[in-house]
């Protein structure tokens, strides 16, 4: 049976077919769909973990209990999970454990562009790199086998075009490998220094065996063609190379990319005249191949940043100049993503901007608060950074003699992911920061996954709903408020109060994401054109339901309007009202 699957869907399918019984992840583009597609299988326990570190720890525990496990995250998630990962490399596993890192070259939906192939040699764990959806599925099965045979976590590294690119995949029935029994083994699993030193030797010996295995791994293969040019490549780069060079060159296509098959590389190199290493981002293969004393052409012609493409290879290797784009004599106006109509983040940003605050932002839809006309966010770094950075900013300012405050703006899912420890730090160290939690009742940016504050699990079961205000109070925050995000006056009052408070403050702005299903529908608004003075105050909130016409008039698109009333609240002339209803100002 052939199914048309994305790489993410294929990994989920592979996990299912090869007997996984456990999956854990924190959502992050482009990895999210892996767990989403495992949730429906009744044979597989799947959870959204609080963050990637927890996901890997949960996965390691499940492996010890005898499950085959998939843990999935985006590239920056692996940074969060690095602590358990680098030591799980020492403890090894029981049931097969595959960690998927979904990297995002060109940063379509990410804050940096790290090449996580570097993690494999750093952590000393084997790595698989599928080149299409079929391989993504197959290599999950290979990954489980390698993990169990060599007693190690296995890293599967994919990129956006593998994760979100769809292709035909031959699918099979599920296999049920026997459960592996857990046996207590402190020297293996307790990495106290004396035991860790013993395991360090085991890791080295394992790496030597993996190196031999890499030579015989069937997905590392040579495709012989004419031998004037040889191309060494892996992952999506293989597809671009095949697109450009077809059958006119020879290929060494690698799928097991740490440790590398040195003999195979030497053999290939000895038979071709000129070698290109074609890889996206870092010179990962190139550096290791050069270290073998093999002369290759790599990053001197192929860019070390952003996505690769067939076009780039044509230009950089074949010298084919890509035709200049014809200039059109009309504006091809950019269409940047925007906060949705009715987004509950908008009023908070509006007030933050109005008050001229320094605002440390975080990771999520509210990253869009950076864009005009809101332009309310000063920084975006990583999950949870808003709280630590706002605390540091406030402390340093106080230490240096002025008393500047920076507010931290963080989402609900992000608060649980990486915000709580920062808040504890702020309380512990006598900070006086202001934390604004934009609680839209879901993990919105990645497509509405539940989190510890939603009261529902990945599998759709009701569970304890952890309230952010309760967390803050129990951590010792004395000034805690919960405010409706749509009530502009209350929002401003709460922020002003928090700024004046001598000590840490947490304000939870609670209103569900405008796209979240099952929310109450509010009536749309309209602008009374007689009353409207065309002052354009409403346009400053940047709502896409407000339409600015060439004659300077503004109307509301009733199909887009969600009736949040924020525009009506900013209108100084009370010109905006519910369709057919009363004016509110």
């Amino acid at each position, binding site marked *: 049976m052939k199914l048309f699957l994305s790489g993410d869907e294929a990994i989920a399918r592979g996990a299912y077919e090869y007997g996984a019984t456990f999956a854990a992840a924190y959502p992050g583009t482009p990895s999210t769909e892996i767990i989403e597609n495992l949730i429906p299988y009744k044979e597989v326990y799947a959870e959204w973990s609080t963050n990637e570190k927890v996901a890997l720890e949960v996965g390691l525990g499940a492996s010890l209990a005898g499950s085959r496990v998939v843990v999935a995250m985006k590239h920056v998630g692996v940074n969060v999970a690095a602590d358990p990962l680098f030591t799980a490399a020492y403890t090894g596993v029981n049931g097969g454990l595959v960690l998927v890192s979904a990297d995002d070259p060109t940063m379509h*939906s990410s804050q940096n562009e790290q090449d996580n192939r570097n993690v494999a040699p750093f952590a000393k764990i084997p790595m698989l790199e599928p080149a299409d959806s079929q391989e993504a599925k197959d290599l999950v099965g290979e990954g489980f086998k390698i993990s169990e045979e060599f007693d190690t976590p296995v890293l599967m590294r994919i990129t956006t075009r593998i994760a979100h690119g769809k292709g*035909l995949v031959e699918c099979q029935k599920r296999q049920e490998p026997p459960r592996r029994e857990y046996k207590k083994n402190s020297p293996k699993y307790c990495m106290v220094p004396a035991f860790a030193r013993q395991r360090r030797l085991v890791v080295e010996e394992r790496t030597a065996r993996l190196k031999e295995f890499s030579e015989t791994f069937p997905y590392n293969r040579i495709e012989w063609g004419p031998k004037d040019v040889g191309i060494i490549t892996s992952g999506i780069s293989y597809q671009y190379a095949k*697109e450009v060079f077809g059958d006119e060159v020879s290929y060494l296509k690698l799928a097991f990319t740490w440790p590398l098959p040195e003999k195979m590389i030497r053999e290939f190199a000895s038979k071709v005249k000129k070698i290109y290493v074609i890889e996206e981002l870092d010179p990962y293969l190139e550096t290791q191949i050069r270290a073998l004393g093999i002369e290759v052409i790599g990053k001197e012609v192929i860019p070390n940043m952003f996505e690769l493409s067939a076009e780039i290879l044509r230009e950089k290797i074949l010298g084919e100049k890509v035709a200049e784009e014809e200039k059109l004599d009309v504006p091809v106006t950019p*269409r940047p993503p925007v906060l949705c109509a009715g987004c509950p983040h908008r009023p908070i940003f509006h007030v933050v901007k109005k008050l001229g605050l320094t605002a440390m932002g975080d990771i999520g839809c509210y990253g869009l608060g950076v864009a005009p006309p809101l332009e309310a966010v000063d920084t975006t770094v990583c999950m949870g950074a808003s709280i630590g950075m706002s605390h540091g900013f406030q402390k340093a300012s106080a230490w240096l003699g002025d008393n500047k405050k920076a507010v931290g703006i963080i989402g609900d899912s992000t608060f649980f992911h990486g915000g709580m420890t920062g808040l504890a730090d702020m309380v512990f160290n006598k900070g006086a920061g202001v934390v604004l939690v934009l609680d839209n009742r879901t993990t919105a940016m990645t497509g509405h996954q539940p989190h510890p504050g939603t009261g529902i699990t990945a599998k759709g079961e009701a569970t304890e709903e952890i309230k952010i205000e309760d967390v803050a109070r129990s951590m010792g925050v004395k000034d805690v408020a919960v405010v409706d995000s749509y009530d502009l006056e209350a929002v401003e009052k709460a922020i002003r109060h928090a700024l004046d408070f001598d000590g840490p403050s947490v304000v939870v702005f609670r209103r569900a994401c405008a796209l979240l299903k099952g929310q109450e529908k509010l009536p749309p608004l309209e602008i009374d054109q007689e009353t409207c003075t065309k002052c354009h105050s409403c346009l400053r909130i940047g709502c896409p339901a407000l339409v*600015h016409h060439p004659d300077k008039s503004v109307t509301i698109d009733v199909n887009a309007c969600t009736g949040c009333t924020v525009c009506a609240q900013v209108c100084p002339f009370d010109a905006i009202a519910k369709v057919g209803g009363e004016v509110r100002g």
Partner: protein
Amino acid sequence: MAKVTNVLLVGVGGQGTILAARILSGVLQEAGYDVKMSEVHGMSQRGGSVVTFVRYGEKVYSPLVEKGTADIILSFEKLEALRWLPYLKPDGTIVVNDLALLPAPVLLGKAEYPYNALDILREKAKELITLDASKVAAEEVGNIRTQNVVLLGALAKHMDIEEEIWQKIIRENVPPKTIEANLKAFAAGGQY
């Protein structure tokens, strides 16, 4: 190398280009082709410009369409057709929905919308098919939500694939209650 055909489906996040691309890919798979489809979601879905690449032939390697090589561009919105025009090959076809969705900078009064987009497209493309899919969906089909399938109907006329295959895949991909409306929408789109 065996010929690969390149199709771009472009529009605005939330317009349903992905469902349309899924139906198209299903049709191509059923017709016996190797198919690859690539899109980027995440940040871009929040009302931004979106593109889905569909490539098919005997064997497809890269999931991405290169500039100047698209056989057909199916655009759900006028400005988006202009934006992706550089991907069209010289003798390519554009099927465009006669709809203007104003991007944020235009809504804010900071930029202009190219209301004459269709004139420019007519100049540049060898073949241009325009239709008002929402009007067709509302007036001829009686269901405004079938706009995607109206556009697919218009696209299908420019692809050499049996109608029965399209109908089968549409049946499999739309909610059961809307099958008849969607088949009607497909036929209506084929009139353009």
